[in-house]
């Protein structure tokens, strides 16, 4: 069995494929992750703040958004937006479509992480901020959000890591990222086991790096944040 995986021919195929796979990972998968994550982060902060401040109407809208997005599969959302919306005249290119769907999808989960974190910041922080004359938004920006961010950091890291791997789903809506590239190569060389293992390994290595960075980030935030 091991011979099937590791004979000279297979190794040559894998070595051949590696720079191309890595290239697509760096040029497409990572930018897709970064853009989607930034979008998700922005969405999550706004949605969490709206709920924290109990803004009428908007708050219900946010609950609705979270309910729908968390209750439907990511793959279905991708298909709906990319293949479904054109019937309504909304045609998006594959890459921006993927960014939108990933951003809004993960944004719903991250919004819940952020909301929980906001609520975990002691109420007195907000009161003290208002007592020194800051407006609500100023207290949020300078005092509460930074502390909430520290609290939400592990959960947000989770989301980022999950998103890195989630980008492989973009292959299904024609985005040429690493996984789709592996499929293309596989169509030519017919080496599923080796190629997909290689792809898995690249994801694994990158996520290992992220885990390492998360730990360093937490230590750094602890040092400067002073939150016990």
């Amino acid at each position, binding site marked *: 069995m091991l011979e099937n995986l590791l004979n000279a021919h297979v190794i040559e195929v894998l070595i051949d494929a590696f720079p191309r796979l890595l290239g697509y990972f760096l040029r497409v998968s990572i930018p897709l992750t970064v853009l989607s994550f930034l979008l998700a982060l922005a969405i999550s902060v706004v949605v969490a703040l709206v709920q924290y401040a109990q803004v009428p109407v908007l708050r219900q809208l946010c609950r609705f958004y979270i309910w729908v997005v968390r209750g439907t599969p990511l793959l279905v959302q991708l298909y709906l937006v990319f293949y479904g919306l054109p019937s309504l005249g909304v045609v998006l290119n594959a890459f921006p479509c993927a960014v939108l769907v990933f951003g809004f999808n993960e944004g719903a989960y991250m919004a819940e992480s952020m909301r929980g974190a906001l609520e975990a910041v002691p109420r007195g922080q907000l009161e*003290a901020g208002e007592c*020194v*004359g*800051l407006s609500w938004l100023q207290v949020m920006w*300078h005092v509460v959000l930074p502390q909430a961010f520290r609290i939400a950091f592990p959960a947000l890291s989770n989301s980022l890591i999950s998103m890195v791997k989630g980008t492989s789903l973009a292959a299904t809506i024609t985005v040429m990222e690493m996984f789709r590239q592996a499929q293309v190569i596989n169509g030519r060389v017919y080496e599923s086991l080796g190629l997909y293992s290689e792809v898995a390994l690249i994801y694994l290595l990158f996520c290992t790096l992220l885990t390492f960075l998360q730990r360093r980030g937490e230590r750094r935030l602890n040092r*400067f944040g002073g939150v016990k």
Partner: protein
Amino acid sequence: MMDDIILKAEGVRKSFDGREVLRGIDLEVARGDVVAILGPSGSGKTTFLRCLNFLERADGGTLRFDGDLYDLSRATRADAAAVRRRTAFVFQNYNLFLNKTVLQNVTLGLTTARRLPRDEARERAVRALEKVGMADRLDSYPSQLSGGQQQRVAIARGLAAEPEILFFDEPTSALDPELIGEVLAVMRTLAEEGRTMLVVTHEMAFARGVSSRVLFMENGAVLESGPSREFFENPKTERSRAFVEGLGAR
């Protein structure tokens, strides 16, 4: 000078879930007064103080502050901001900004809310921190300080805003006994400088020695109000006498 009334609250009422915690509190504070608000736990002292700074919305009552009149139950955000700009509030739990250094804790309000230039804010902050003996810890975070040190920084944060009046909500109640002294010492200095202070406290020695007036509350009502010497030497009601004597026994 004694007639220079800076703060006058009338008929302050507040209920929580139908339970009346303030049943119409009146208070007059003259410039330079140090008013100790005393009374057993649950008498509404803290709630009253918080209503005056709009941290709690009163159900009724008026506040005349520094020439402006506010309807406490209908005050707007702008009203609250206007009062807070001229007052400082010191919390029981200090409530220093946990993500800011000592210096940033004091300057944040100055640069962000008052739009002071950075170096002027810093100068003012350092002066305030010197006054409370914390100028050597500018770059420390709150979690690296003792409770007493945190509370002194919190007082400096209030002072730097150059408020007309300082509110203290049980400023020493969360402190270990050996740390209470350093905070009280700072407060005593402020009183001697003639600052107007409103202090909810259980520190009787402080109330007796430092405050000029006493407001004695029980069950959400004022039982006695007057010069503190009179209150401690010759309490007018039976309840306040029992309160003062109970303290003596302790």
